[in-house]
């Protein structure tokens, strides 16, 4: 066996090392050392990003089981940065009395899901793909139920694990049909044997349904609002950005690599699902009063836009998709960061509670405004550029009507994003949320996100460097 192959999976190996060190620290560190837990975790994450900064060369490893491409490294790095920001934002929450003793579990569980996503992205075989997917979802259920003594969190955890199990079951059934009809699970061998027979169509539908659950596309989105609302806010942020981003990218690679012969079929499916997702999510988002629920529906509609990058199956689409994930991460994590710190400090989460926030916490209100503007796609914020590129990609693939419908939906979404802005700046309130000082970690994460919202769009080098990484299969 050629052991040099292991050099190519350095991102996974280094992540496992990070997980192990944190696990050991959790076990061995004395009571006085424990206050360094968070700095250590963040530092190790930085190290992880540093190790994987160079994209490396494309490689097929272990007989095609594992695939490595520069684009995948870029995606993994984006996900890692998202995780780091989540860690930073978790500061106040993890210092709470009922969580401080188990903060080690938070890091290890989160990183385990990240490891699963790594494997899912790099898989060259459905077996490894499924293992990665499950590694990414089972610890996620624990994270959702992290505040297990709080009713909402426990309920959300139960809902998540049950629906995830069901969707995994569907997906696995789809995979078994693929294996049954082709006799292989290797991505390399499959395209030749995919013919679009009814059995394979069913296999595709079940596989797609399983992935659509992860991405929360309509009608597989039903769990989203309940789980997002119940889960601890940091976990919700992580779920909405990192988990979703990895699943969309993995889905796109599989569609292009494995289901290439069925391209017209899956384009057709995605076409209708995108319309349903964006429209229904927007209509629901209009009426939400709870901000986490609101962001849940907002993230469902954003998932619809993400699928616009997938639908063309083109290189431009892939670039636009990765760029969109990056931009979406900055904006959404900024929004969740603000909401979570306010929830921790004041316990308030309804839109009405945010009335008059500008008077008492102008900086937080400003950051949330920027984040919402970016999510709505208003220039010159990054969200506009990411939407432009993804529309451009779909347009070039010939989906003119779809782009038009999506554009109309962006205008509708502007309305509800502005509602929040209006609440913060204009609506009067006798008892606005009292002024408070955020902790340093949250502050750093918010500055990072704000920088991202402002700069990612304007600095064209970012788009170009993603573009240069090429197709990334």
């Amino acid at each position, binding site marked *: 066996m050629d052991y040099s192959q292991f050099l190519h999976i350095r991102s996974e190996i280094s992540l496992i090392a990070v997980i192990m060190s944190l696990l050991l620290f959790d076990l061995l560190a004395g009571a006085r050392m424990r206050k360094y837990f968070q700095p250590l975790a963040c530092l190790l994450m930085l190290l992880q990003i540093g190790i994987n900064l160079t994209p490396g060369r494309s490689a097929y490893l272990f007989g095609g089981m594992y695939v490595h491409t520069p684009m995948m490294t870029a995606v993994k790095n984006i996900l890692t940065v998202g995780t780091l920001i989540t860690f930073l934002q978790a500061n106040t929450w993890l210092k709470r009395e009922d969580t401080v003793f188990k903060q080690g579990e938070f890091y290890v569980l989160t990183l385990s899901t990240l490891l699963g996503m790594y494997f899912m992205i790099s898989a060259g075989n459905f077996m490894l793909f499924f293992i990665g997917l499950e590694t990414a979802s089972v610890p996620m259920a624990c994270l959702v139920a992290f505040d297990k003594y709080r009713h909402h969190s*426990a*309920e959300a955890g*139960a*809902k998540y694990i*049950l*629906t995830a199990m*069901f*969707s995994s079951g*569907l997906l696995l059934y789809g995979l078994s049909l693929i294996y049954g009809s082709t006799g292989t699970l290797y991505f390399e061998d499959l395209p030749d044997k995919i013919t679009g027979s*009814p059995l394979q*169509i*069913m296999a*595709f*539908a*079940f596989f*797609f*349904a399983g992935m*659509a*659950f992860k991405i929360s596309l309509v*009608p*597989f989105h*039903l*769990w989203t609002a*309940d789980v997002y609302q119940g889960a601890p806010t940091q976990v919700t942020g992580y779920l909405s950005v990192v988990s979703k981003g990895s699943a969309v990218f993995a889905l796109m690679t599989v569609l292009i690599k494995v289901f290439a012969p069925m391209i017209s*079929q899956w384009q*057709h*499916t995605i076409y*209708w699902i995108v319309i349903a997702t964006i429209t*229904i999510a927007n*209509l*629901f988002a*209009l*009426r939400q009063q709870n901000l986490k629920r609101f962001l849940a529906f907002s993230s469902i509609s954003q998932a619809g836009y993400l699928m616009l990058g997938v639908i063309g199956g083109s290189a*431009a689409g892939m670039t636009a998709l990765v760029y969109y994930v990056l931009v979406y991460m900055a904006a959404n994590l900024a929004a969740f960061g603000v909401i979570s710190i306010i929830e921790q400090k004041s316990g308030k989460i309804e839109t009405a509670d945010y009335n008059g926030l500008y008077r008492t916490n102008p900086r937080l209100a400003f950051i949330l405004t920027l984040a919402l503007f970016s999510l709505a796609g*208003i*220039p*010159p914020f990054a969200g*506009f550029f990411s939407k*432009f590129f993804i*529309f*451009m990609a779909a*347009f*070039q693939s010939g989906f003119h009507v779809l*782009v*038009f419908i999506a*554009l*109309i939906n*962006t*205008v509708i979404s*502007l*309305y509800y994003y*502005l509602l929040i802005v*209006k609440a913060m*700046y*204009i609506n009067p309130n006798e008892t606005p949320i009292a002024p408070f000082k955020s902790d340093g970690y949250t502050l750093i994460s918010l500055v990072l996100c704000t920088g991202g919202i402002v700069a990612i769009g304007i600095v*064209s080098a970012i*788009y*170009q460097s993603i573009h240069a990484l090429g197709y990334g299969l």
Partner: protein
Amino acid sequence: MKFTIFILLLPAFSFLLLALAGKRMKPAVAGGIGTAVSGIVTVLSCMTAFLYFGAPRLQDGTHAVLIPYNATWLPFTETLHIDMGILLDPISVMMLIVISTVSLMVHIYSFGYMKGEKGFQRYYAFLSLFTMSMLGLVVATNIFQMYAFWELVGVSSYLLIGFYYTRPAAIAASKKAFIVTRFADLGFLIGILVYGYYAGTYSFRPDMVALMSGGVAMLPLALGLMFVGGAGKSAMFPLHIWLPDAMEGPTPVSALIHAATMVVAGVYLVARMFPLYIGFAPGVLEAIGWTGAFTSLFAAVIACVQTDIKRVLAFSTISQIGFMITSLGVCTSLDPQQGGLGYMASMFHLFTHAMFKALLFLGAGSIIHAVHSNEMSKMGGLHKYMPVTHIVFLIACLSIAGIPVFSGFFSKDEILTACFGYSPLMGWFMTGVAAITAFYMFRLYFQIFWGRNPRYDHTPHESPATMTFPLVFLAAATCMAGFIPFGDFISSNGTAYHIHIDKITAAASIAAALMAIGLAALKYARTGPILPCGDDLPDSARGLFPALHKAASHRFYIDEIYQFITHKIIFACISRPIAWIDRHIVDGFFNALGWTALITGEEIRPMQSGHIQQYAIWFLGGALAITVLLLLI
């Protein structure tokens, strides 16, 4: 011409400075910085114009198109890339002058008008932002850069309309303006996508060879969609509804953004793409012309019955932009001697209109400053108290009514000549609208400065020098701008065109204007007892056309129609039932289950609620639906 970059950089710098450090400055310092920057920009713009038009013409008699800066910003393919740069050609240089001059006047005027307002520094920061984005828009080297600044202009307009953010009406207006124009920009963006895709470039002058091989057939669609964006910004029917409400912003802002500069962006867009419209989409251009003509009549009729001084001016702006758009629409060729006159006329009117309409708004601001009300019924007999404002306002009214020697006469005459050249119907139509214009402007003038004299709470007085200076300056510009040999600088194909007045057209329009002014004088210049508020229109007009009058004073119910569509149809028929189903059927069902479960115990409620089964059924149903869908196609 390398220095032109500072025209953009200086306002950007001033915006950043005032936005970041404004709060720590004294208001006067912040205003001083903004005004000084604006002054330097005006000087630079004049220098640009002087050097540009002073330079010798090319051999074919046109002015050279200069691109002092151009940097590729986002490349897609070899030919398709987004650039950022500065483009100087006759119309962009003309726009530089208009924007920087009006902006400077507004900067100075605001010293007096906004004195003591909360957020004075913020106000100047936004003014700088607006100036920068508007200048960036006109010097854009490609359609995408134009779009980027276009949106930025929209954002700064949103911020400035909502400046009095404690007033609900201002907030509602800013939101309305933002959403309506964003909706129109949607068309613009799709137009850009189509254009980029089929023409293979974002530049204004696509490579003809590439275009011929690509999609000439799609160009009309792209250009039509772009005009939708332009119609939104320029408040063309039926997207005009935001402009009257935008008058909630401070009056100098109305003068700068909603009269002189931003609202003509749509006109500028059509002028910028003019060779393409003429060459590939003459049908679209014709439709644009009729849209403009209809809008100008529509808005003029509404302006006759408004009672709020700023709203009269707002509808008058819509109507005048309609003139400019019509004038572009009636062009049939690139040659100014044969059917291309409208292009020059439109740009000329844009230029003169910017001056006299800014003057009207600033004059209105001066009046509002003195009597503390926007309602015309609260005004009257002001010529005694405000002599300077009175004289300049009269000059502006004469100009917009098209009375000779004032600038509006010259530009409007060119427009009417162009319209007559297109078809006599269009010519008479627009002459009629011009007559209505004269009527409502003098209705305004007589009611404010003559007419009944209401009891003022305290005697109105003339405004301070910071406010009267811009008025006098703009009045002087209004008196003289008509004598500029405008055709020498700008024409549809770039060669010099010598303006000559068409005597018959001029005579007809002057006669119509004078009759309209006489009618207005007869009806509104009387002095007499104070009538109850709002009952300012003589019964004769109401008696003659009761339905028309009622409809016009409700602005032809357009707002109600929008309200109906958004609230009654979208919200009530789609959103609300879905939300209702969500809340009552889905939630209600599970709540009911939860209630029964409560009896057995709170702890197991989530497990028994039935959510998960329901979700699982949806998942399975979804997967099966996909299968069925794929099997059927």
